[in-house]
């Protein structure tokens, strides 16, 4: 289970990290790391201001 991050769109603002209910996301340097605890709830997808996240 995972969410896909388009690094070319991502503004590395960390908004998605703040809303992840299972703490599966982390902002490291200029990219978002996704852990396999992701449940594909989709909250981060809606919050991302630039639309860089996607559930596959």
């Amino acid at each position, binding site marked *: 289970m995972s969410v896909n991050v388009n690094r070319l769109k991502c*503004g*590395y*603002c*960390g*908004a*998605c*990290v*703040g*809303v*992840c*209910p299972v*703490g599966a996301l*982390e*902002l*490291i*340097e200029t990219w978002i790391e996704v852990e396999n605890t992701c449940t594909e709830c989709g*909250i981060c*997808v*809606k*919050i*991302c*201001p*630039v*639309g*860089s*996240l*996607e559930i596959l």
Partner: protein
Amino acid sequence: MKDKYDIIVVGAGPAGSITARTCAEGGLDVLLIEKRQEIGDPVRCAEGVSREGLKKHIEPDDRWIAAKVKGSKIIAPDGTEIRMSEDASSQKAGYTLERKVFDRALAQHAASAGAEVMVKTRASGLLHSNGAVNGIKAVYMGDTREIKADIIIGADGVESKVGKWGGIDTTMKPVDIESGAQFLVSNIEAGEYSKFYLGGEYAPGGYLWLFPKGKNTANVGLGILGSKSEKGMALLLLRKFIEKHMPQAKILEMVVGGVPVSGPIEKTATDGLLLVGDAARQSDPLTGGGIINAMDAGKIAGEVCIKAREAGDYSMKTLKEYEDRWRATIGKNMSASLKVKNMLLKFTDDQLNNLAHSLEGEDVSKMTLPALLKVLVIKNPRMLWELRY
């Protein structure tokens, strides 16, 4: 870098730097770490602050003041303008900051007071002893080290992990966060007022702002409430606004970010750990303003750390004072703002227009937001009864 400090502050934003400065001025041994290689960059802010709020912490300095504003204008969906927050004494009520320079100046103050600063250094976990937090794991250029401290300060912003590692759930629900996008634009008439545009067309569950950054430049951005946001909506609506209302604008910078608007959360401290600023979700739920609250909280946190050091007790017994003090001050205002936010969310654009019209003939130009709301309640008792305590 040493193996042990009195205090480690994670995050060198306004909250972290003020905490670090306060602790260092009190004689404590402080380490301030920041995961970015450049403090303050990239910016995640519209950079608007009130002069009064800022002056509590730092003397205004032209190096990081991009523009001085006369006051605010709230613009109803039908275009009705309400002028407010003008400062009678100074002609200047607020500033648009240059956060890149401002944040660095604050960190420099902390450093001058004696704090050690480390950039490109990321906290990756906490150390515990007997149930209390007593250090961090820090990654610097790929190497992980353990550093001990009596108290850890989580000043790690909207993406905070420190609280979660310490057992404090700071996760925001969609309704607790604004999804924001902003352009620094030039080739426009910026005016002398900060402008706030209300209405579903501009920003569902939030507002659109224009903060002057100089004669022909401004931060133009918007925030959408998470519960109303769809994928990429913030940037999309911002583009739409610029195309329609300022087609001549040139975009010099893009800023994105999330603003906590939850109101006070249940817990912001535990044995050996304090959360400050956006990490503690202390931004104002109505305006999204978080800089001054972050600095206020940092000051309180620093003072409580100094007391804890004197008492030699880093448990909640001494740290509880932080919870009590910020809730009695910042927290109280946040709760009031949350009520207004929740009320505004229920209003249609027509109702917002009617509210604006009800102020016709009133001079509210010197009023701050709470005073203006009182006038609105008097003028619109039926619409605003929900706000009454």
